[in-house]
């Protein structure tokens, strides 16, 4: 019986549970002996010209080794946005003439001891001449106050052409409804904040310990920021305490730590406070969406339009380009005859936007799922029925949407039916009806979301997705795997070991996984976009198979048989002559004379498209507006499930984050650009009391794109849960005339929606 598909406990757990993970701040290494501590002076104002920076008082504070400003960093080139963006939106790595958000980097203070840093930072005196803040989408688009004067605009990029929208798109529709909704800004807030440690060697190379989602990308990013060649940068990835999309590549802070180390000729370390993390780690989402949906009273949707304004924050980073992915997934799992989508990314005097669990795709699903419910309400049809009538029928051959996405396999109606059955949908509607008839002040809401999402993207059709793996069997019967993925909680040590074990017959606990050290693994795509299992896992499996072929040749010569006559017995991890089990040789012994290893690259034909349906059940206290999440029931179909324990964990985490966005979390700025949610006391980070246990149903529609039949599961949970919960809240209050509530459905927002509905009644 194969180990694949079974609930193998994680081999990495014992050390996490006993001595704890070794995160960047925990690293003890002789190369870091005598390290100094780096602290950043950050702007307390959202938009201002810098009049002057005086570090003299800081330099006299106890333990201060040095202080630096932009003037000292002349050798570092300005950071330019990607080629698709307005190239006039470059900025220096430390602010020189102006600051553009609360948290913008202004100066560096270096101390002997960690405890001396904050004392010294307080003494740096910066002269700010305030400029008006640019916070709202409207203010940004108005271009009256510009963040980058040379750019002449706050628009960083356009996706599609708004002037080319089809004014006749909704002509044949009996019913059309439109609304501008908010997919609000949230903070990824991994439990481990960002950190870095750097030390230069005699050979002119820098070794940097940085928590990341792909050491190779961090290496390239750090090299670019410092004007180095990639070979001069050695990245080591310690344990990473969560990332959720916000730890890709290299941030200015990482580069500055390395720069300080070179400047001072000694190792340097930095770790950020939670305040810094909440204002300077990239944020997620922040799209204003205008959805227009039209169709017939029989429930057929004929047309859908999505118009997006993406808030990019002050600096143009990954977030500015995410509308590209939102547009790609505009029509979701639906067969909508006519659909179009456009987007604009604008800069604002706020924290920059980056990737956050789903990165552009949750936004697409949230928009169309809200639109589906708006349409359902307009025609008075059950939202499940509306979805059923419009979902694409099942397919096993790839299906290309008019937005250019090539869905591999899907059975969306089955997912919907399965989750409705698991939730007891009819009984829930019955209970809702009874509560309404009684006039209960605690309303029951049932919300749906059907979704499809894209995982394992490559770099377009010219560069199909791929990943490398090296598998080596050692004479002592153990094995080592090198992977280009970058786990930060996903359990690759266990999962990749299962894949190798399944082929080689070596026990899981005798297999070691290595990753994240660019000297050891120079190439790799990291972990993000839910790519790891389908590409990285497939590569491990492939490498193990290729290793067996090499081993077979060696075994044949040792057993003096022809390779074709040999059989590999996985249970014994040995080759035997077919029909003669005594004539056998253990796999490990074939590594004795010569190393037994294979490096392979697995290439996938393209991205895969997991899908699912979620049902959320909420109770809304109509007297206070408070939402309580009672149940979330999901189908998340990502093909074959390699390890149900791990897959469920990914779904749980995604569901929780998705739900949290719907009714709890948001980053808030006041009109002057001051962040109001810059601590875990103020940012409503989800705790265990706000969510129930989740109910997961199993569905596995394999893909043909890799031998395992797997798609990506890491982000799917968050994509489905957000609209399911939002729709549930609105559904709870539909009988009172509420049609929409923006996220998060905070008590005040819900209560105000109820008041407005009463007034309209």
């Amino acid at each position, binding site marked *: 019986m194969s180990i694949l598909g079974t609930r193998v406990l994680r081999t990495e757990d014992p050390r996490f549970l006993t001595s704890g993970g070794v995160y960047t701040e925990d690293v003890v290494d002789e190369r870091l002996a005598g390290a100094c501590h780096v602290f950043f002076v950050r702007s307390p104002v959202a938009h201002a010209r810098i009049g002057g920076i005086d570090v003299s008082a800081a330099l006299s504070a106890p333990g201060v080794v040095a202080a630096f400003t932009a003037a000292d960093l002349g050798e570092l080139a300005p950071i330019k946005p990607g080629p698709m963006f307005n190239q006039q939106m470059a900025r220096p790595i430390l602010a020189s003439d102006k600051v553009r958000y609360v948290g913008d980097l202004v100066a560096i203070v270096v101390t002997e001891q960690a405890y001396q840093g*904050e004392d010294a930072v*307080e003494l740096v005196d910066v002269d700010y001449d305030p400029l008006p803040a640019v916070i709202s989408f409207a203010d940004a688009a108005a271009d009256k106050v510009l963040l980058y004067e040379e750019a002449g605009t706050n628009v960083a990029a356009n996706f599609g052409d708004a002037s080319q929208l089809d004014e006749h798109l909704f002509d044949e529709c009996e019913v059309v409804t439109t609304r501008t909704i908010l997919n609000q800004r949230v903070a990824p807030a991994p439990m481990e904040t960002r950190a870095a440690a750097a030390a230069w060697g005699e050979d002119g190379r820098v070794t940097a310990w940085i928590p990341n989602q792909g050491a190779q990308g961090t290496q390239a990013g750090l090299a670019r920021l410092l004007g180095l060649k990639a070979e001069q940068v050695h990245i080591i990835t310690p344990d990473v305490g969560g990332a959720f999309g916000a730890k890709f590549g290299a941030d200015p802070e990482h580069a500055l730590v390395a720069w300080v180390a070179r400047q001072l000729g000694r190792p340097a370390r930095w770790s950020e406070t939670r305040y810094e993390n909440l204002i300077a780690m990239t944020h997620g989402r922040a799209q204003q969406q205008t959805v227009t949906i039209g169709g017939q009273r029989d429930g057929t949707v004929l047309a859908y339009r999505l118009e997006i304004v993406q808030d990019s924050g002050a600096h143009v980073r990954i977030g500015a380009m995410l509308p590209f992915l939102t547009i790609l997934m505009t029509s979701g799992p639906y067969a909508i005859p006519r659909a179009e989508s456009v987007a604009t990314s604008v800069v604002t005097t706020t924290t920059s936007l980056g990737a956050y669990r789903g990165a552009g795709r949750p936004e697409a699903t949230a928009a169309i799922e809200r639109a589906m419910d708006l349409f359902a309400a307009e025609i008075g049809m059950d939202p499940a029925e509306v979805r059923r009538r419009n979902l694409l029928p099942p397919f096993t051959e790839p299906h290309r949407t008019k937005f250019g996405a090539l869905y591999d396999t899907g059975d969306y109606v089955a997912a919907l039916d399965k989750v409705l059955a698991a939730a007891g949908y009819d009984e829930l509607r019955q209970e809702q009806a009874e509560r309404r008839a009684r006039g209960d002040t605690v309303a029951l809401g049932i919300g749906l979301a059907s979704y499809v999402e894209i995982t394992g993207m490559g770099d377009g059709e010219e560069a199909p997705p791929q990943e490398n793996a090296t598998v080596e069997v050692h004479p002592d019967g153990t094995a080592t795997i090198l992977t280009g993925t970058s786990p930060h909680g996903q359990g690759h040590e266990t999962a990749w070991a299962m894949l190798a074990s399944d082929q080689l017959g070596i026990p899981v606990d005798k297999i070691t996984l290595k990753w994240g050290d660019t000297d050891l693994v120079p190439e790799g795509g990291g972990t993000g976009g839910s790519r790891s299992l389908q590409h990285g896992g497939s590569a491990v499996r492939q490498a193990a198979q290729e290793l067996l072929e090499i081993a077979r040749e060696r075994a044949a010569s040792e057993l003096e048989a022809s390779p074709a006559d040999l059989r590999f017995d996985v249970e014994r991890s040995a080759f035997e002559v077919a029909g003669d089990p005594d004539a056998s040789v253990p796999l490990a012994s074939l590594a004795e004379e010569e190393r037994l290893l294979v490096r392979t690259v697995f290439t996938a034909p393209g991205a895969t498209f997991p899908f699912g349906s979620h049902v959320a059940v909420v109770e809304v206290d109509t*007297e206070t507006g408070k939402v309580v999440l009672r149940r979330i029931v999901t189908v998340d179909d990502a093909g074959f499930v390699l390890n149900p324990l791990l897959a469920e964990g990914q779904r749980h985490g995604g569901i929780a984050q998705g739900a949290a966005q719907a009714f*709890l979390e948001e980053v808030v700025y006041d009109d002057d650009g001051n962040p*109001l*949610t810059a601590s875990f006391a103020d940012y409503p980070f989800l*705790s265990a009391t*706000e969510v129930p246990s989740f109910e997961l149903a199993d569905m596995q529609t394999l893909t043909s794109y890799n031998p395992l039949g797997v798609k990506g599961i890491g982000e799917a949970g968050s994509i489905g849960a957000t609209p399911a919960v939002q729709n549930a809240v609105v559904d709870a209050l539909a009988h009172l005339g509420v049609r929409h509530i923006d996220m998060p459905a905070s*008590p005040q927002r819900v*209560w105000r929606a109820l008041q407005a509905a009463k007034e309209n009644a």
Partner: protein
Amino acid sequence: MIPAPFDYVAAQSPAHAVDLLDSLGDDAKLLAGGHSLLPMMKLRLAVPAVLIDIGRLAELTGIRAEDGELVIGAATPHATVATSGLAQADAPLLAHSAGLVGDPQIRHRGTIGGSLAHADPAADLPMALLALGGSVDVLGQAGTRNVAAEDFFTGFFETSLKPGELVTAVRVPRRPGAAWGYQKFVRRANDWAIVGAAAIDGRIALANMGPTPLRARAAEQALADGAGAAEAAELAAEGTEPGEDVHADRGYRRHLARVLTRRALEHRT
């Protein structure tokens, strides 16, 4: 984030603490559980030069009955108050309130005296003390005086404690069997109240409806005049000055005050 540097001295007795406060003046602050003070110091919103530790003084911990009152040492942790059989029997509103402060770890350290002296209008215990009609014993150079809850909370994070004084004990009337209600409206379990309401014996106290915990006197008067819970609660927001923040604006706070007061009067928790 870490506090600015400071000196530390452990008081040997409450009287010693008073002497230290006197000699060190405004630069010194008292430290019991530290779960109101240390978070402020870590954010550098408080920068005392000296901390006087009274957290382990036996004279300041413990709960006992004294005639018609429960007397609780000021340095008694919230968890102790919450799980005290005596408090649960004779002042269940207080035990319940203490059991809602923060989270379990915070309740193991934070103290009733510390919380009251911190005087956060959004906190549980100031509201509870006001609803119960309790008082605090205050020790200074001139000896001990007793201050009623009404007179203790004077402003936003301000009390009537004079320099050189410390709270030594908290007193609440023993009311076994009295019906009570307590409402703490939060978005997450370990948050401070967006609005809170506590009711017992015809007294109603509100949290986070002004710079101090407040009595809902108009509602109390309506009750005294024979109004029912719902009718009286309609007046709960009168005389309040709620603030605005990310969670609630003034109008919503006033609405919550009315709803929560009604629920507290219905003896709901």
